[in-house]
């Protein structure tokens, strides 16, 4: 099917600003689902609050737009209610790492079969550009006019440490890589966390003088490299992309099914 066959065109135009990276992620999530050949009725997309979290409304799957930070908690109920469904959870960086940080680490710890796509634009966009826990040290926002003194989370390390069994990072510049990674994350049985670096030219770009959307996407091309590349050893400041972790571990809903069987003997 074409990407537009997965969209609820009745609800367009979407709310994202011109140049926003989130539409690229939505398109690539759809392409990944299409490649996997999933039935639309078997997919549930659950989100919290923020720019990223408007995505479920636009896609023609079962969609649940919830509370700020709580997407993974609602998704836990959906997945445990009907474990055969594919549950995808797009989140923003503030949504996932600040107000929803506790749910993120606990979903990872349980290794429940959810796919968290963290659309990291380093800023709270919906509320007008405040710094987030993933704004780099010194980055500016409307609540950090001289640069934030908070240190940023490395969400990849956080997810690994918390117990996620699939952890990856990509950017809106690397579209074919993104489709492959999201498809793998969805297929993976266990908690998958995919960080996608996504440009916000309107707030983060403007506040930090990063140029246009194209300039910001080019900075993803220049500022990142594949995991373990030679380039990384020569330029340690580069951010690594790719799949950091892919492991088979007991998955929560499967463990629960086993518990049910055991309790009925």
């Amino acid at each position, binding site marked *: 099917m074409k990407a537009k066959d997965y969209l609820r065109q*009745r609800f367009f135009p979407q709310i994202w600003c011109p140049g926003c990276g989130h539409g690229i992620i939505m398109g690539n999530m759809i392409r990944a689902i299409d490649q996997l050949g999933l039935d639309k*009725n078997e997919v549930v997309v659950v989100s919290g609050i923020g720019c990223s979290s408007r995505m479920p409304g636009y896609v023609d799957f079962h969609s649940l737009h919830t509370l700020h930070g709580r997407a993974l908690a609602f998704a*836990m*109920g959906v997945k445990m209610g009907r474990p055969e469904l594919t549950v995808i959870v797009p989140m923003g960086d503030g949504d996932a790492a600040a107000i929803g940080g506790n*749910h993120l680490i606990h979903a990872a710890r349980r290794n429940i079969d959810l796919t968290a796509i963290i659309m990291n634009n380093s800023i709270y966009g919906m509320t007008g550009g405040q710094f987030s826990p993933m704004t780099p040290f010194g980055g500016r926002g409307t609540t950090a006019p001289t640069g934030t003194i908070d240190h940023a989370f490395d969400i990849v390390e956080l997810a690994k440490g918390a117990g996620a069994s699939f952890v990856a990072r990509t950017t809106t510049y690397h579209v074919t890589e993104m489709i492959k990674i999201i498809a793998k994350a969805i297929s993976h049985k266990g908690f998958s966390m995919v960080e996608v670096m996504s440009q916000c030219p309107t707030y983060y770009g403007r506040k930090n003088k990063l140029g246009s959307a194209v300039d910001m996407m080019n900075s993803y091309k220049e500022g990142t490299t594949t995991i373990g590349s030679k380039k990384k050893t020569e330029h340690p400041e580069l951010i690594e992309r790719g799949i950091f972790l892919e492991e088979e571990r007991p998955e929560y809903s499967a463990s629960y099914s086993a518990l049910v069987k055991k309790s*009925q003997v």
Partner: protein
Amino acid sequence: MKSNVKFIQGNEAIVEGALYAGLQFYAGYPITPSTEVAEILSERLPKVDGTFVQMEDEISSMCAIIGASLTGLKVMTATSGPGFSLMQEAIGFAVMAEVPSVVVDVQRGGPSTGLPTAVAQGDVMQARWGAHGDHSIIALTASNLKDVFQMTVEAFNLAETFRTPVVLLFDEVVAHMREKVVIPQPDEFEVVERLRTSVPGGTDYHPYLAREDGRLPMSDFGGVHRYNVTGLVHDMWGFPSTDPKIAYDLLHHLVDKLENRADNIARYKEYFTEDADILLISYGCSARSALQMVEDRRQRGGKVGLLELQSLWPFPRETVRAKCEGRSHVLVVEMNMGQICQEVKKVVSIPEKVYLANRFDGVFISHTDILQILNLILGKGV
């Protein structure tokens, strides 16, 4: 025949009622004095193919049961004051998105950590107004374990009927006392199942288009209708809208579907009310002491009666107004600083006749406490 007589604790009666009503999914977080509900369900639910999950906090517990309800399951969580506070935002979501769910609040002393192991009834107003914004909600309560069982079944029935969260506002005394309970046979009590849409797949299903009777047929996540659920003001497809007419109609629908049926939803019991000059109004554990006081006075020829409320929200206005007519005194007995007393004053024709007999120090109010207060009111001294 297998004996269905049990000697159980209040929290266990909640579990029995919930399972009788068809509970399939429970998510919760440990908290005194409701923890036994989770402990017992962790053992019972897997045996009936149900799901028990212990979450990282009460916020996620409420969120998880909403998610599970949308997949078509009957769901519940249980907590006490501090946890109930944390659940309020998600309870508001369940109100807005019209998701059937049951929330047990076993009340303890507050505010904050308060008196964790002591009894109180201080969450009455929080049950009504804990979530922000104009809305309505159903809250039921009970004073003995037979009624705890029955109100729990009714909570599930009302949640399904009205697509709303229902609060079971019990208290530490009722939850921790033990009584004999006869578990009804299947079919003895009505159990309302989820109303699902008959609209076939492929045609336009409107998840938020109410029928003439006010009910909204549902479709399970994973089924043939793919629709949007949101906490934003939304249209009949569940899609966000800022249209003033849509906002106005939606808020009216959410409030009217319960408030216009308040007398339908009203549940109460009466003891010696026919000829009573003095009417006591009480609920939950306080109603036990109120009843004992009334029975004692009756033996001495006192014309005292009791109206026991089993539904607190929507407030049974017409019932309370009618039952208070013509009494010399109305005495509201509760374990807070007058949360229901104020509601009674609002609806009666002579508010000056309404008095409060209460305790809020963690000590269970006794029949002698109530009598002392009544004697003071009557000018008889202590």
